[in-house]
């Protein structure tokens, strides 16, 4: 576990981005850039992060940013990384994409780049809906969550993006949460020390979209980990290890009612749906535990 003292003091986001008050994505980006350092290029498809940069001719991002179409982020990063390496430069190429641009629209270019073995880091910050356009349902929206296009709650489960990415056998992949910034920092640092395609999936609670008060951003993120709705782990060359905060949570997870009840987006979820979600959480924890123990 990283200690506070090893985190660099430099900030690569100038005050201040146009993110909503209490936005966890800008918190994540702070730590991603602290870990990556100044020799970094961000590739950003359409998502909240392409909106919060500021208006031309000013930007609050103090690293080069390439804004690109939804479906093309990983393809663009592929070319960029190849160009840098052929010039002999070790510049970090990081795709910072939302869940819509990863799980739904960008998945083909993501898959392509991982198959080609591009040397880059793909970060998906997951707020479980299309936040930037007004919280429409995405493939990452969980069962029972209310969005503007699922006014009575989504009737399908969340797509398991991590299993799809794991099928490409990347050298490093991990999940992280905005509520544990030190864990996130350490994972980004580790990912960037490895050559090849890397993937980090960050849970990023969204105050207006998930309908909770902005001060609870960290609290909700921690609840997600403590209830097992989100499990923090990393998989290095195929070997899975569960990260610190989730280790304790997996021994005795809290019931998910606390997490569900804290957010307005689950207000239409019936007890049957909550029970179904609880079962899915238990199945997922069980699967991860078995994988860690090497049973499956």
């Amino acid at each position, binding site marked *: 576990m990283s200690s*506070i003292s090893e*985190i660099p*003091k430099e*900030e690569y*986001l*100038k*005050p*201040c*981005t*146009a*993110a*909503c*008050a*209490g*936005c*966890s994505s*800008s*918190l994540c980006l*702070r730590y991603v850039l602290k870990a990556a350092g100044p020799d970094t290029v961000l590739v950003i498809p359409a998502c909240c992060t392409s909106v*919060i*940069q*500021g*208006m*031309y*001719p*000013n*930007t*609050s*991002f*103090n690293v080069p940013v390439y804004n690109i179409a939804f479906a093309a982020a990983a393809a663009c990063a592929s070319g960029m990384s190849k160009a840098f390496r052929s010039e002999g430069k070790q510049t970090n190429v990081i795709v910072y994409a939302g869940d819509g641009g990863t799980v739904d629209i960008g998945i083909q270019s993501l898959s392509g780049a991982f198959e080609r073995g591009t040397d880059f880091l793909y970060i998906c910050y997951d707020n479980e809906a299309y936040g930037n356009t007004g919280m429409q349902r995405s493939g990452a929206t969980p069962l029972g969550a209310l969005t503007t296009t699922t006014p009575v709650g989504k009737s399908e489960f969340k797509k398991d993006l991590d299993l799809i990415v794991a099928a490409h056998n990347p050298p490093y992949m991990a999940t992280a949460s905005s509520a544990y*910034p*030190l864990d996130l920092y350490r994972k980004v640092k580790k990912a960037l020390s490895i050559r090849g395609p890397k993937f980090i999936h960050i849970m990023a609670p969204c*105050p207006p979209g998930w309908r909770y*008060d*902005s*001060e*609870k*951003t*960290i*609290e909700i993120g921690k609840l997600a980990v403590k209830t097992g709705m989100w499990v923090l782990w990393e998989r290095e060359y195929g070997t899975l290890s569960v990260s610190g905060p989730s280790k304790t949570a997996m021994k005795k997870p809290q019931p998910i009612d606390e997490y569900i009840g804290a957010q307005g987006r689950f207000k239409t979820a019936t007890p049957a749906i909550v029970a179904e979600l609880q079962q899915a959480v238990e199945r997922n924890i069980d699967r991860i535990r078995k994988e860690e123990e090497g049973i499956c």
Partner: protein
Amino acid sequence: MRERLALSRPTRGACGFTGTWREFRPVVDQEKCNQCGICQIHCPDAVIDEELNIDLDFCKGCGVCANVCPKKAIAMVREEK
């Protein structure tokens, strides 16, 4: 660099003074504060500096600092406009 190229440059206050969004202002009780810096770690917009001073020109008043403070040393006080 050619002027025609549409390049945005890093600027302080690129999105305006976001402090004007604020409805509640964080007020630190220096007697309770033990300088742990947890508020600084969790501030989404990095408006709390190393000496734990809050930059009120840009603080959006989200209240995350008050919520994570283990000593409950930060109070959110309504802004009077």
